């Protein structure tokens, strides 16, 4: 199983990648670690005419303490996020969530930016990005712009990043609270979550849900309950409120609603 034919254009810098995107427009796809894009290309669900490989743009791979926020380069690999001492100290939810993505081989290749730009509601990291109230920096022909994680995921496999743009950085507020947790339920260790959740407490609590809608979504009503000091049982009882989980081969809508409540309670109690 190999992808359909494409032209290969390696980019050595962000600027070179942007100029290649400007040249080829929607015929081109950015290749980072390739662990979302290549499976799609092998299944011929994606057939880009041009693949712009940004995998060796090293200056987009970093984790930096910037005072109130931690800045993560979009090409930082899951393994680096998982093992980062800075993140373990200041955004433990994200480091922990990264350790649950796929398996070690996948985490050695996949990048945080690639995962977010894939915009898959079944992915783990988008839920953590929502829960931690991250901001995303997108570079384009006219410079950088920032969007909140709430505005980033626009539709199924669709994000705010336009065809001539590139996600470059993720900015995450430091978390000083005690309560956080990530839970997912799946059949085998490396499978996609049937449902998952990333939960962070504090003054501005966040609960990001995996596979509970057509995009990565926040459980806003459960967050409000958490903010007002409700018990974990009451918060968890609202985990599916206002959400429209899908039905597929792994579970129907009511099963997902059930899982959402169980998992949010576990994330809050553990």
């Amino acid at each position, binding site marked *: 199983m190999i992808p359909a034919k494409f032209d290969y254009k390696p980019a050595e810098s962000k600027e070179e990648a942007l100029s290649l995107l400007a040249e080829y427009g929607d015929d081109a796809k950015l290749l980072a670690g390739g662990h979302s894009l290549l499976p799609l290309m092998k299944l011929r669900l994606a057939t880009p005419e041009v693949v712009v490989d940004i995998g060796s743009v090293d200056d987009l791979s970093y984790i930096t303490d910037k005072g109130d926020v931690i800045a993560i380069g979009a090409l930082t690999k899951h393994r680096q996020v998982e093992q980062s001492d800075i993140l373990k100290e200041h955004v433990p939810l994200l480091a922990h969530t990264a350790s649950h993505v796929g*398996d070690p081989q996948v985490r050695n290749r996949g990048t945080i930016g690639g995962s977010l730009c894939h915009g898959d509601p079944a992915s783990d990291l988008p839920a953590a990005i929502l829960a931690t109230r991250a901001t995303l920096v997108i570079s384009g022909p006219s410079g950088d712009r920032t969007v909140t994680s709430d505005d980033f995921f626009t539709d199924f496999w669709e994000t705010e990043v336009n065809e001539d743009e590139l996600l470059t950085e993720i900015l995450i507020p430091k978390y000083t609270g005690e309560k956080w947790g990530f839970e997912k339920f799946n059949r085998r260790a490396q499978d996609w979550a049937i449902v998952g959740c990333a939960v962070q407490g504090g003054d501005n609590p966040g609960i990001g849900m995996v596979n509970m809608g057509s995009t990565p979504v926040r459980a806003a009503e459960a967050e409000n309950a958490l903010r007002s000091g409700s018990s974990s049982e009451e918060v968890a009882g609202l985990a599916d409120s206002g959400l429209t989980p899908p039905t597929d081969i792994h579970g129907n809508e009511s099963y997902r609603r059930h899982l959402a409540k169980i998992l949010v309670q576990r994330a809050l109690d553990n």
Partner: protein
Amino acid sequence: MSYPTSMTINGTNYAKSVDPRTLLVHFIREECGLTGTHVGCDTSNCGACTVLLDGDAVKSCTVLAVQANNHKVTTVEGLASEDGAFSPVQEGFRQEHGLQCGYCTPGMLMAATALLKEIPKPTEEEIRQNLEGNLCRCTGYEMIVRSVQWAADNPDGVPVAIGESS
């Protein structure tokens, strides 16, 4: 369109011109003739195609050969020393009967090699977690876990040349 691609595999440089859609596993097997690396599921689930890319375990069915351009690859053929002595992980799989049909074994060996480089004395739990990307349909994993434990307990291995019986 073909793209000039060169990489060092097990210390030997291979320079080929390949279609950019060539997967790393196909480059290794078909362009370089190193057929120890297996294609299993071809969907990044089973881990039979695991190789080391710059020392990190990766699934070579989900890496393009061009992505490994100018990088270093280690395959199962690169584990034994030049005199044929098994690496500790290879010897562990022999001592503890860590394989039956052998199809998953190259991937298991590479994933276990990467694990022991990072965690020289892993717990059973750590071994199981770090091999979660490799599927075996024969052994039930018990002997594989014991094989990796043997390698951790015997970091110098036992120098028995390939082909000799003990």
